[in-house]
């Protein structure tokens, strides 16, 4: 490397030689490319941009005669600009590489088990209750509730279940001590309907949901504590056709659009006329038989387990509210008519979710609830 020119005499300035400058730029490019990290790139910059041949050439310009300055300045400037661009490009490359590397280094095994905190769940029976309630609320009905320890009058008398009705005997009803104190554990949610009729003026469109009690020992199909939902409508001009329509709508909401129903006469003290409703089995679609054979195998027809082979599933009892019941609640049966229908919520859950043993519903094993999460 030569020193700066001190004289105005034109001397040979080797660093400003175009070929020399090109070589320096080429060398710098090579150094940038060779830099494997941002630190190495910094070293290359120091060597080839801040110092080195091009920097030296820039210093030499001052020594040139004015006539040569412009030309040399242009060349050196172009070389520097070229180096700057190359440096920036390489910096971007190396920064991206560094970022990539850090993310790789930070990688973990995301398949390791988690679950530091327990996950909760609702009980499917309460979820079924909510679902049923919501179906009615969506139809413009309201939900009503009442006490579980109830008076005999509300639970029996007002519902046209007289003193001699078999349901009032000890074998079905839990009586509160003393047995002649007029209190029972309600055997149905219907007393809530009585309370509603005593409290409100028609039009009334309500469903009552809740716990009811019968003196059955717990087994696979019975439980002494279970849940019901009952609908009650009292209005002017209500007919059995409205009853059927309400049931049909409800069945479609619960078991799917197009679910057919059939009705037949029945008897309940609370209603007259009374009606029993069946809906077509959703498992066998009314055939009464299902194919139990695996895919591709020859047909193996068995009696449908959901409906027992009849093709129909019993929904529950219903009817037009007995005039005596309206009268006992102070509603004029010549002005208003009403209808009511009810069903067991355990049964709705069993049908919907394939729960076969009642004990699973009542035993409180967390594994039962946890299968359902927050929805049935």
């Amino acid at each position: 490397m030569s020193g700066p020119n001190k004289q105005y005499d034109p001397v040979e300035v080797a660093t400003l030689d175009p070929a020399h400058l090109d070589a320096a730029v080429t060398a710098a490019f090579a150094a940038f490319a060779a830099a494997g990290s941002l630190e190495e790139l910094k070293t290359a910059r120091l060597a080839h941009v801040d110092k080195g041949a091009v920097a030296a050439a820039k210093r030499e310009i001052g020594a040139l005669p004015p006539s040569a300055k412009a030309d040399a300045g242009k060349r050196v400037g172009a070389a520097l600009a070229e180096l700057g661009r190359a440096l920036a490009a390489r910096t971007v490359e190396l920064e991206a590489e560094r970022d990539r590397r850090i993310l790789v280094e930070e990688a973990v095994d995301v398949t390791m088990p988690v679950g530091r905190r327990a996950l909760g769940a609702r009980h499917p029976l309460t979820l079924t209750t909510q679902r049923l309630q919501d179906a009615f609320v969506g139809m413009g009905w309201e939900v009503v509730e009442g006490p579980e320890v109830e008076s005999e009058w509300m639970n029996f008398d007002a519902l046209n279940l007289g003193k001699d009705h078999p349901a009032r005997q000890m074998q079905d009803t839990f009586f509160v001590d003393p047995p002649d104190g007029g209190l029972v554990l309600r055997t149905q949610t219907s007393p809530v309907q009585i309370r509603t009729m005593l409290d409100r003026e028609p039009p009334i469109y309500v469903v009552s949901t809740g716990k009811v009690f019968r003196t059955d020992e717990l087994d696979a199909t019975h439980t002494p504590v279970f849940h019901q939902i009952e609908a009650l409508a009292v209005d002017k001009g209500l007919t059995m056709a409205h009853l059927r329509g309400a049931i049909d709508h409800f069945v479609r909401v619960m078991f799917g659009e197009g679910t057919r129903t059939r009705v037949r006469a029945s008897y309940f003290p609370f209603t007259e006329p009374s009606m029993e409703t069946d809906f077509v089995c959703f498992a066998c679609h009314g055939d009464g038989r299902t194919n139990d054979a695996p895919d591709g195998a020859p047909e193996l027809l068995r009696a449908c387990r959901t409906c027992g082979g009849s093709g129909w599933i019993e929904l529950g009892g219903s009817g037009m509210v007995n005039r005596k019941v309206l009268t006992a609640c102070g509603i004029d049966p010549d002005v208003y008519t009403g209808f009511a229908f009810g069903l067991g919520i355990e049964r709705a859950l069993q049908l919907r979710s394939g729960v076969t043993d009642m004990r699973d519903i009542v035993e409180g094993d967390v594994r039962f609830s946890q299968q359902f999460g927050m929805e049935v």
Partner: protein
Amino acid sequence: MRIPLSWLADHVDLAPGATGRDVAAAFVSVGLEEEDLHGGDVTGPIVVGRVLSFSDEPQKNGKVIRWCTVDVGPHGQMESERIAQEIVCGAHNFEVGDLVVVVLPGAVLPGGFAIAARKTYGHVSHGMICAEDELGLGTDHAGIIVLDTYLGADAAAEVRPGDDAIALLGLAEEVVEVNVTPDRGYCFSVRGLAREYWHALGSPEGGFRDPAAVPTPAPSPTGYAVELTDETPLEDRTGCDRFVTRVVRGVDPTRPSPAWMQQRLTQMGMRPISLAVDITNYVMLAVGQPLHAYDLAKLSGPIVVRRARPGEHLTTLDAVDRTLDPEDLLITDGGEVPLALAGVMGGATSEIDASTTDVLVEAAHFDPTTIARSSRRHKLISEASKRFERGVDPDLAPAAAQLVVDLLVEHGGGTADPGVTDVDRTSRRAAYLLEVDLPSRLVGHRYPRERVVEILRDLGCTVVDGSVVDASDGPKGAHVLVTSPSWRPDLVDGPDYVEEVARVNGYDNIPSVTPTPTRGRGLTHAQRVGRLVANALVGRGATEVLTYPFVAESLADAFGLAADDERRSATRVANPLSDEAPLMRTSVLASLVEALRRNVSRGQKDIAIFELGSVTLPGPDSEHTAPVPGVERRPDPETVAAIEAALPRQPRHVAVVEVGEAERAGWWGPGRAVDWSDLVDAARAVAAALALELTVEADPDHAPWHPGRCARISLPDGTLVGHAGELHPKVLATLGLPPRTCAAELDVEVLTVASASATRFEAFSTFPLAFTDVALVVDAVVTAAEVETALRSGAGEWLESVTLFDVYAGDQVGAGLKSLAYRLAFRADGRTLTTEEVNGFRDAAVAAASAAVGAVQR
């Protein structure tokens, strides 16, 4: 109620080619639910056999089997090997020469049991000799069927070995069983079912033949004397309002009832007993009138019907000595000797026996309530009581008695006495003025007048034009005057007739019209609160369970409740399923611990469960009686209030129980055990879901919690919400629950009321937050809540939060003291606070704390 198709066909024309399933479907269409289908599921060969020989062979297992040869005619081994059928039989109730029923290999018995020749007890048994139950004829398995006894000697003389036993015993015939609802007592008879089947077919002209339509003689003074008395009628209805007696003399007691009758009784699920008894049962099944046959020789005085006297006894036919109640109705001999519990069961003293030749037939009508109460009182449900309590046709007695007399004469060789007794106190049925449009209006389907009248007449009603009486109300012809048939006491008012019209016309013709209520207001606040509380707890990782609300008496002691604790006053179930758990829970926790125990016993270690449900709080002096007013009108407000006052308070509570790890151990490090604070936090989560603030204080005296680890949770106004913390170690030990189990119980009603009004939005500042830390030394007994309250009271309006981030007790603060480190956060509305201001607030807060609880800044 069962009905064999052949018996049904005797009284109604069956649809051509109708099977049992078709008949059952027809019954369903008129509201008689199908219960079962019997018979028709036996396939041959099943033949008559005559026992030729047997040898009894004792076995190692103590049993003695019979190795028999049986003549089965030209079938079985006779056909294939030219020898008599060889069969192993377990029964011993037959002799050589007896006619029996033999099931040959290849036959299929009820339930799909295929019979094949099989090796047993060292022989090859080629079929089996049958008992009744194996053929689906009854439930008897005491021995095999011996046809000489089963059919009677006369009928048995007609059969030969090799005859088809399927036809002989009616095994191929289908029997439909239907469920009869309590209002249709008349369907407990072939008469009623035949009529219903006829309706199902559209009530074709002449298609129904009433089995009770027989001529009956007029009553005569020479009949057996009968007196009806009742000094204490129930609900103003006399116990017996009709009593018919007939006498048949000279009946041959050795004659069996005819085979066809025995077969029908068997098909109906009854056991043939003797001629007189079988005939009364047969006629009862045919027409629905319960009947009783007395041995006339055992009677001395007139028959007197009366209520029982206190302390009176009767030994009924089932050999039970019964102490009678003054409400029981009795048939007595001369007024003194009880003969029968009226309408329920006969007595042993006048029973028909093997020497009875003269028979007194009783056909009576009793009050349903009297019979229902007696039947229940004595836990005695008989074929008679079942019918009487549902209502028997009061006009039926003479015809039923006549049918019995005819059969006794025909099959028993007796002679009917000309004397006929018929004490008739029945009242005329009132006619009902039916609005002809009522069925259309109540059903929502158009039934023309002619159709309504036609259906009512088919049902047996008398229908006359109502214009004579309905002139005052509506247009002429708007009403008809209907009198129900004697067998339909259930038809009383308009809706009863509406149901009949709709039913006979077909319920499936009722249209479907969705009602459109317009005033729905959605779920109530209380209902939404229930869902939110549960969901908030699920969000914290708890699982909802359901438990029975029944708890043991000993639980109050196990919980360590004080003598005067309100939760000791519990509602008691008079007839609990288990004497171990006769009380209604006074806390949800009381039954939730059972679910905890079950989960622990099934291997769960880390458990967080909750239940939302009612508790029953009758309070200490709860001897209330709820009035039971009449139902003729709405009870007056005082009565309704008295009913409500008699009910115990039943608020909704939520209880949470947690044990094990709150945060699990794992590859990430150690876990954290559940402690009291998790439960206080659960309460906080529930309150936060309802935008409520809670106040927490120590409660050293609230069982079943740990006295040092129990938080009393209340609303800022002091209203108690509940308790949370760790349960008392002694309670846990007593109940066998895991140590360190924590629990909370909150009154959801309180939370519901507190959150009822809409939350008001409060504007918040967007200026920067300023923090300052302060460590305070206080006496160890001072609570964190007290210190925080003091800090808050002194810190001024811009205090945003107080966070306790460290608690230290040890050498550096001195004995009996503790250091609490707080971070105070301040933020002003509309400006940024200066450091000097914040320091001033802090100093004021510390000053308040030192004034209130003697706090010294470290």
